[in-house]
């Protein structure tokens, strides 16, 4: 059961999504600014950033709903604008406010969706419907927000897409529905090496389920790497100085300081030994170092003053 990677047996390791130097402007506003992103197959890729950072615009390019003004977008090696059928038939998509036809019953919606996808698995759809306790005879617009999200999830999963694309899937939903969505993400990737790309501002969720993380701010990818690498190269260090100081210290590798008086804590990038050496030079010593959560790292990387373009 144990293998190098759950999906290591895949013979084809070509990226599922490959974006190179993508820039998009809406009038005077730059929504995406030179974005490059590679999503390998068989992983969960988390896209994090505040509202308006550019995550949805990026996802719309992957779906071929927006044409690249500058740069290239390839999904399964194809251009999603030029070959929408070839790309969209292999993507399962769920957005925060899914626009499902409200007047249909759940059963009708399933029949309708099925017509578009030759790979639709009716038994799987039925299994999900009963697991989620969704009434097939219910009219979509009468469902609660959580049940509507579950219906959207069934519609996105039942043709077993190679890429599951979720835009803020759990925004505004209760914890039980969020659990269902996270469960679906995990099942999708555990199941024959499919790939998941999802955007979220809930960092604890992203930390749980992601193999890779990209942090987006002001239309730029500020930082992207394998989550394991991110966690291994970032840590928190508390430094104690000989006397109280009024301003945050400066040390190489320290990304973001918080503190007061003699004790200051930094989220650092690099090796603990480097911070210890830097502290010693300033007549201070490291009194504790602890792991940094993705939340800490996000604040340090994205919340800190980083010279980027327009604020949105």
């Amino acid at each position, binding site marked *: *059961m*144990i*293998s*190098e*990677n*759950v999906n290591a047996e895949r013979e084809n390791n070509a990226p599922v999504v490959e974006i190179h130097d993508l820039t998009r402007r809406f009038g005077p506003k730059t929504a995406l600014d030179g974005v490059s992103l590679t999503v390998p197959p068989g*992983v*969960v890729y988390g896209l994090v950033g505040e509202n308006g950072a550019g995550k949805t615009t990026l996802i719309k390019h992957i779906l071929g709903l927006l044409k690249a003004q500058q740069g290239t977008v390839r999904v399964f090696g194809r251009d999603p604008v030029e070959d929408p059928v070839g790309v969209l038939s292999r993507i399962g998509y769920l957005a925060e406010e899914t626009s499902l036809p409200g007047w249909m019953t759940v059963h009708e919606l399933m029949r309708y969706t099925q017509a578009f996808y030759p790979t639709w698995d009716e038994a799987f759809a039925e299994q999900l419907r009963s697991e989620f306790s969704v009434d097939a005879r219910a009219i979509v617009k009468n469902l609660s927000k959580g049940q509507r999200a579950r219906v959207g999830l069934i519609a996105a999963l039942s043709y077993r897409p190679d890429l599951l694309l979720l835009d803020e899937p759990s925004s505004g939903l209760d914890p039980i529905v969020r*659990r269902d969505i*996270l*469960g679906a993400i*995990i*099942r999708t*990737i*555990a199941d024959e090496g499919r790939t998941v790309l999802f955007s979220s501002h809930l*960092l*604890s969720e992203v*930390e*749980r*389920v*992601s*193999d890779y993380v990209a942090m987006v701010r002001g239309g730029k990818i500020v930082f992207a790497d394998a989550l*394991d690498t991110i*966690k*291994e190269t970032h840590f*928190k260090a508390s430094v104690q100085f000989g006397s109280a100081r009024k301003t945050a210290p400066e040390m190489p590798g320290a990304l973001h300081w918080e503190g007061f008086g003699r004790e200051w804590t930094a989220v650092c990038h690099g090796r603990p030994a480097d911070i210890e050496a830097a502290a010693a030079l300033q007549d201070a010593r490291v*009194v504790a170092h*602890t*792991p*940094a*959560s*993705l*939340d*800490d790292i996000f604040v340090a990387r994205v919340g800190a003053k980083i010279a980027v373009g327009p604020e949105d």
Partner: protein
Amino acid sequence: MQIHISTEDGTPIYLQIVNQIKYLVASGRLETGEEMPPIRVLAERLLVTPNTVARAYRELEMAGVVEKRRTAGTYVSDKGSRLAQHEQWKILTQRVDALLAEATQMNFGVDQVVDLVRERSAAMRPIDDGLMRPMADLTESISKEK
């Protein structure tokens, strides 16, 4: 098998799984020869990516805590008991290290700490006899001291 994942303290999730399974083996709640849940099953239960569980199992296998059996899943290793003892020492060592670090910070010497350990051990002895009353008294006196 009870595992709790927290994304707040920052410890990598695979390491949380490794540490907790080692702890479960050390404390005897997982026994030698016991079967581990398949990667996918545990991933879905803990709501973490299967690659994370795979990495945790890989580390546990390298540490000799679990072993793969061809086409038949993952089991707690036969070397379990020896390892369990090693792990028990490690758990205690970590606690002692933390205690010593804190004592140093407060300018207490090692001898004072050892004396305190003996003193506390003596104070706790009645509880070892299975009497619940002294425990309640103890908690009460501690809260009064504060």
